[in-house]
């Protein structure tokens, strides 16, 4: 409970209209998807207040006040996900929505300086106007670039060209957990933003570690992100009415959906196209969310899905080419088509005009016959053909699907539809950063595990399709995560879904696959750290050094005491049998209230 005096002080910092203790408003911060899996309710702990600072100085003043009064605090940018909150009530929530400016776009040096509430969609729109583009995390264009770059993961569909969020982080401004301000990178000395390293040791790794501190390490107030060339129009030309929009695929651009005979071909294709440095996007979308993405409602999806054919389009990759001129485009296309030939791929959809669409469809169908068998194809084909005929009548030709796919990949605008519409919610796991080959191993294992949980009735039956994956930095590394859909309003799912997470985490350890992409927070550390050089000592050490009072709420970062208690429990309690949900419950019980030094090592 926040005292009236402290609340008045907070109002004094941010202005009376920008601070609230109204329970109805606070609840809109406590409510989060996935909360039901973490705390067994749709609401995380209700914050004691929400404040909306308008700038860095206000953030500093708030953090200092929190330190003085021992109030745990956490910042959010757009605030999507339970990690922006705390399982325990009483934390002070900083909503950074008012810090929403693009401070600078340096077109010559190809970077943009942004505040926390700048999202992918807005920076991209402005950058495209200057012939540039930015990396947008796979969460979609509605999420914060700063949050992604400084604090959370960073996977995104165009990663083969635009890298990974942590690698795009240049100079940044950081209100450290005690309220001190640090300008990191060349910003500190030169006031320039073009590098996040030095002079002196780089702090980029320190603030982020593997997956980011998820708000548990102070507040980032500004940052520069790298921009990339955009060889397209200043704005995409859109047609259609919601929910069907399409973009004209510009000259010297193309989008392909290519299907393969099996994993090995898909592996080879990814590696070769990555190495050839020709693609703007190179990504595998599982069939179910892909079909959700191009349909208007769950009903329409179901009608189409019932055909059974899409389950068999599992070995597929989407590729976008964006060239600066015709010559380069010809080169990119020729290389791509050669690789398709070498790897036995078949083009199921392609935006390059010509009679090719129809050929492609025929090829796709014959491929389905091969993969699904003639009977299944014959059974499914009427549904598919009825769908296609209806779509055709409504003017949605395959060309239009290609345009919709292009739009979705460039603008990253369909994520929420793909993952939230089917069941209401989703969970993702596995998907650590590793080689593309290892990603495929991940996918195979993930599929096996998911099938079991579908059979138990816990997850939506999406054909147990393997994960959402893509390559980064021309294929230098990659990730493939195991997306699963469930209904958060259904107790059966809420009760069971964590078991799926446990199984995937255990599999990554047992089979030596990469650490789960969201391996952050004490339960994850407890599973992984003993297998990875007891890394939690380092992470906890960093946290304690910068945040001795442990006030920057760290339930999704690290609390040494809790992690170590859980490690012990796993060791003693036959860890193999301890499921993730039990661990979360234990973590809840163990959690030392922030603001005390419980959880810190003895001096």
């Amino acid at each position: 409970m926040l005292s009236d005096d402290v609340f008045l002080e907070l109002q004094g910092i941010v202005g009376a209209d920008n601070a609230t203790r109204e329970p109805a408003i606070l609840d809109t911060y406590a409510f989060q998807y996935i909360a039901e899996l973490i705390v067994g309710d749709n609401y995380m702990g209700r914050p004691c207040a929400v404040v909306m600072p308008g700038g860095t100085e206000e953030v500093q003043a708030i953090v200092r006040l929190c330190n003085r009064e021992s109030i745990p605090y956490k910042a959010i940018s757009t605030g999507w996900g339970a990690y922006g909150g705390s399982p325990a009530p009483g934390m002070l929530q900083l909503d950074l929505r008012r810090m929403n400016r693009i401070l600078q776009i340096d077109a010559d040096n190809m970077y943009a300086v942004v505040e926390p509430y700048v999202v992918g969609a807005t920076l991209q729109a402005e950058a495209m106007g200057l012939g540039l583009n930015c990396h947008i995390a796979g969460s979609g264009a509605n999420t914060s670039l700063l949050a992604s770059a400084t604090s959370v993961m960073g996977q995104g569909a165009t990663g083969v060209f635009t890298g990974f969020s942590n690698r795009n982080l240049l100079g940044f401004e950081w209100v450290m957990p005690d309220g001190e301000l640090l300008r990191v990178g060349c910003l500190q000395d030169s006031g320039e933003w073009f590098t996040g390293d030095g002079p002196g040791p780089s702090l980029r790794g320190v603030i982020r570690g593997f997956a980011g501190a998820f708000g548990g390490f102070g507040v980032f107030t500004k940052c520069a992100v790298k921009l990339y060339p955009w060889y397209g129009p200043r704005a995409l030309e859109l047609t259609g009415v919601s929910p069907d929009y399409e973009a004209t695929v510009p000259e010297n651009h193309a989008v392909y959906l290519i299907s393969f005979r099996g994993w090995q071909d898909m592996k080879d294709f990814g590696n070769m196209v990555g190495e050839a440095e020709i693609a703007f996007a190179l990504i595998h979308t599982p069939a179910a969310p892909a079909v959700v993405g191009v349909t208007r409602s769950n009903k329409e999806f179901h009608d189409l899905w019932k055909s059974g054919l899409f389950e068999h389009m599992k070995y597929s990759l989407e590729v976008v080419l964006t060239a600066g001129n015709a010559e380069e485009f010809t080169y990119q296309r020729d290389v791509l088509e050669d690789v398709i030939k070498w790897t036995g791929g078949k083009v199921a959809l392609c935006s390059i005009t010509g009679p090719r669409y129809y050929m492609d469809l025929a090829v796709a169908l014959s491929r389905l016959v091969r993969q699904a068998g003639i009977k299944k194809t014959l059974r499914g084909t009427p549904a598919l053909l009825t769908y296609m005929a209806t779509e055709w009548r409504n003017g949605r030709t395959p060309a239009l699907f290609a345009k919709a796919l292009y739009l979705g990949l460039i603008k990253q605008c369909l994520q929420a539809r793909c993952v939230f519409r089917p069941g209401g919610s989703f969970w993702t796991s596995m998907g650590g950063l590793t080689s593309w080959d290892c990603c495929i191993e991940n996918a195979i294992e993930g599929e096996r595990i998911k099938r079991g949980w579908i059979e138990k009735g816990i997850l939506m039956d999406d054909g147990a399709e393997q994960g959402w994956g893509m390559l980064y930095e021309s294929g230098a590394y990659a990730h493939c995560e195991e997306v699963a859909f469930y209904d958060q309003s259904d107790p059966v799912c809420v009760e069971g879904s964590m078991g799926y997470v446990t199984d995937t985490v255990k599999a990554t350890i047992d089979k030596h696959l990469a650490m789960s992409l969201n391996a952050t927070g004490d339960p994850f550390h407890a599973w992984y750290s003993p297998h990875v050089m007891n890394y939690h000592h380092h992470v906890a050490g960093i946290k304690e050094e910068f945040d001795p009072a442990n006030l920057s709420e760290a339930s999704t970062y690290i609390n040494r005491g809790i992690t170590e208690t859980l490690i012990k429990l796993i060791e003693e309690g036959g860890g193999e049998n301890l499921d993730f949900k039990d661990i979360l419950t234990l973590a809840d019980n163990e959690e030392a209230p922030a603001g005390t030094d419980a959880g810190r090592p003895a001096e």
Partner: protein
Amino acid sequence: MLGKTLEDYEKDMTRCARCSLCKWPPLAQVKSIRYSQVCPAISKYNFHSYSGGGKMIIGLSKLRGRVDYSEEMLNVIYRCSVCGACDISCKYSRDLEPLEILHTLRATCVKDGVAPLPAHRPILDSMRNYDNVWQQPRKKKGSWAKKLDVKNAKEQPVDTLYFAGCTYSLRPEMQGIARTTVEVLQSAGVDLGILGEEELCCGSPAYTIGDEELFVENARKNIKALNSLGVRRVVTSCAGCFGVLKTKYPLVEPANFEVVNVTELLAELVEQGRLSFSRPLDRTITYHDPCHLGRQSETYKPWHGVERKVLNHLVIQDPPKEFNRGTYGVYEAPRKVLAALPGLELTEMERIREFSFCCGSGGGAKSAFPEFALATARERVDEAESTGAEMLVTACPWCESNLSEGIADAGSRLKSASIIELVSYALGGGELS
């Protein structure tokens, strides 16, 4: 939907992802950072609670007994123009019903006796006592048409009834538009009648404020009266009247007439060559899509099904439900009319059609929170100015009046006008400011 309770929407509310998509236009349509917000409420007040999704969470918290009514909570619920932009952006991705939930939340407040807000009471009382929202005696409702030679639809059979609405009938600064509408339609040979002082309020304010009882009572009276006329169609030039007549009345009782907006009728007349424009306008204009003419005008398709799960947890509606996603709103008709006017150049704003930014006056916002309504209008005026247009054109008296205030407050050089005024000018009648 009328008569629904928060319980009916518990699953929808629980399934909100808190993704904030309801704060932006459908993501594909974001064109700049400056005009990237689509929800007037969150644009002004910033706390998540003000967004469509935020209000869904408040609904859930109320239903689960986590929160109790307070002045601040009511402020959150009513500082909202019920413009439905959140609904379109959410439904770009989801099968949820944010706007229905906003209505149900308001209706719950009214049922629980904590609403209407004091500022709304005179409007609703006026509807009860005078059958109009402007606290004017019934007799005055027909005064706008005194000098017109137009049939009284009660006395003579007509093909088309012009339903003028309270604002065009009773606001002196708006009455000219109603008269012009009648003159233009008659000049094109439309067999038109009016109801004059016997025209009742359409009931829209009661619906948007949440007084469902009053709305239903009003709608029943209206449907009965209109059905008895035997007209083929009812044409409105107020987007608010059009919205409820077309989409909400079918929830109350069946009607034996078609409801069209004047822009649709004009587009039809243009297409049939029944309006010939001779006077060039020589102007660059921009067009504001009124919420109730655009995204909120989809024909209501009754659905009384249940939710079913297939593939373990894929949620579908049985029988299939057609979601109103703003796809079939009236967007083309006004643009077709504008395109037919000589010397007129339309330059579009960034937020248009189904993701148009609201003018700010709807949902009782203007009466209860004038500063919010004005801020919203200012935002729209700013966007209109950015197009370089000289004139901000719309097709709704509420929009026109609030945007005019925004223009005045901003000291903007923009002029505001209604489509019918441009049409009339191009036909050789009237003058434009």
